[in-house]
């Protein structure tokens, strides 16, 4: 799933981090513009692609151009993270999720793919209660993962 192909071949999309609430808050004219832009892009893609479906541009990213240094550092600090199978048990049991939109699986997946913006704010929602770590079927040390992600994203700790 995370193999980087050699020449900039786009990988499968990552869901965006806007919540539904945020999308609905935009003014209607901006929304309209986005709709037309999407339709235009969709038209172009439909003509470019030879097979029946296409990838929406906003939901794709280029893994070869992503800055994976923080992600690699995270994997060094928390080696058990390599065991993650993406089951989502962590998100299912999350205490913060009982109150707000916080998807820890989405957050750590995104981090691993090199897209760090907005993650620091999301991670502040975590109460560090530890249920995710307890529930993980592969034994990933999620609490350590979250703490390390937060430290890597703090400006004063940033060396890269």
């Amino acid at each position, binding site marked *: 799933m995370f193999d980087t192909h050699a020449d900039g071949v786009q990988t499968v999309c990552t869901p965006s981090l806007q919540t539904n609430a945020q999308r609905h808050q935009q003014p209607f004219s901006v929304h309209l513009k986005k709709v037309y832009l999407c339709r235009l892009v969709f038209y172009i893609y439909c003509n470019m692609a030879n097979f029946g479906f296409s990838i929406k541009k906003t939901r794709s990213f280029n893994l070869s151009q992503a800055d994976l240094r923080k992600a690699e550092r995270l994997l060094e600090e928390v080696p*058990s993270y390599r065991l993650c199978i993406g089951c989502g048990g962590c998100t299912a*049991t999350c*205490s*913060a999720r*009982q*109150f*707000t939109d916080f998807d820890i699986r989405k957050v750590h997946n995104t981090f691993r793919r090199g897209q760090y913006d907005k993650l620091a704010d999301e991670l*502040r*929602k975590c*109460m*560090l*209660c*530890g*249920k995710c770590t*307890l*529930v993980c079927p592969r*034994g990933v*040390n999620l*609490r*350590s993962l979250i*703490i390390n992600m*937060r*430290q890597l994203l*703090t*400006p*004063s*700790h940033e060396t890269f």
Partner: protein
Amino acid sequence: MGTIALFAICGYKFVRWIKQFDRKQQALIKKNMFSTRIVPALWEVFCECLLHLRITKKNWRLGYMHRSIAFGWFLLIVFGAIESRIGIKGPFHFWCAIFYRFFHHNPPVNGTEVFFTQLMDLLLLYVLSGIFLAFVKKIHSRILGMQRTTKHTTMDITVKIALWAIFPLRLLSESVTARLYANGGFLTQTIGDLFSRPVAEFLELPLWSLYSIALCIFFLMLPFTRYMHIFAELFLIYFRKLGLRDSVKMTGYTKYELSACSRCGMCIDRCPLYNTLDINDVQSVYLLRNLRNLEHHQDILAAGKNCLMCHQCAEDCPVDIDLMSIRRISRDKGDTDMSDNYRYLDNVKGFNAIGRVAYFGGCMTQLTPTISEAMKTIFDAAGVKYWHLDSNRAICCGRPLMQQGFNRQAADLRRKNSELIGSCNATALVTSCPICYHTFKHEYNLSIPVYHHTEYIDMLIKSGKLSVKQSDTTFTYHDPCDLGRGSGIYKQPRKVLNAIGKLKKISAEKENSLCCGMNLGNTVLSLDQQTQLRDKALSVLTEPNPDVVVTACPMCKKAFRHGTDANVKDIAEVVAEHLKN
């Protein structure tokens, strides 16, 4: 000369630290400075700094060794001063006591002089026996009951050698002088007579000079080594008796604690990371040393992280340093710890629980719902109206955040939780998680009483609201780290279990119970290592082959359940099964 430098350096350091006390600590000092609390402080100084009673209770050989050096040297100084005061007719200089025999050549004549001479010799022998034991401990520490001692720095080792050299040199110097002037006691005169006169004359000045140099090195280097604990401990005991405690950040009081650590190494033997996992460079003694010397920040962080926070080391510390708080201070997250994170909780409304007992299961109990179901059965059976605070969703008590150094975030959660609990108007708060219990009791300022479910069940049985039937089930009980060593609750769960069945004794219980391995304090251990800790704890619990292994913590239950074929149940479940009706 050494002593002047010593007092100057110590005085400077102490004053600087006092300036670093935080506001709460300063207020306490101003209030209590000259109160009667000085008396228990002096008593503790006598018992611990001189007699080392806490160490003697753990191990009498170690206690004897430390006592002979500390108390012996203290008495030597005191009686030496008295002796020279009596003996010297002229002006009195402070160095006269040290070099008394060198300057005062008359052999002891009257009763007092003979008494003092023999007494000084006896005390010197006492101290020398201690030094001998210390030497033996260096070579083979198990003879004195310690599996492992601290790995000291070069500076510490050098000064230790200087300290060890002081007393044999004193013995030899006094003996040689005794040979020349016959002013020695039973020890010094006997040894002195072994020398011939010309050898004695030749050796006299060099030996006294060496003695003096050893003393000087020791005193000059003392403030930079572990021996600073001699003075720091006096002040620490005084401040502690006045009521000062560690706060969440580094303060002057904590700086006193860091210097009061004598690096005796007693915290290493107890640490489960050492005795089960063979990790021996992260224990409290090394953390304190790194913090004191402000060694490389990364080392402090790395060593600071790898700790279960299970309280075992704090149980053995002879100076009674609050090691858990210092560990937490070392984990302080600084900029990463932001405030104002939990705005999403602002809309969580309070509830009305007038006349009811609020039951807070805790995050972990959400994963072991049989415990909260059992508690509900117990509440119903006792006719107590309750309100299950976190049946749908729960706000964490904040302890996991605090243990990792996110103090501002934990304060946010505390504020919100306190509001909610305060607004519910319950009569009491009962929780089935020891971590939450400790936090609600000591970190929150709730106006209602807080009980752990073991205490509460005990209260219900005592007041007659709950009755349990006897059976012949055998139990072993596991004292959770946070309930036992952390909060001191040992009797109540045992009373409850004895009312239901037969509680068997295990080899490591109460203050010595082993950590289950599943904990929120350590973010470094791998799952394998945690499993090893769990297996060690389980082997102790299943050794007498009980019918049920009883726990009082949802995390311990989750840890043990999959590690053994034996029945593992929480105490609430056991009680719920044995209700009489």
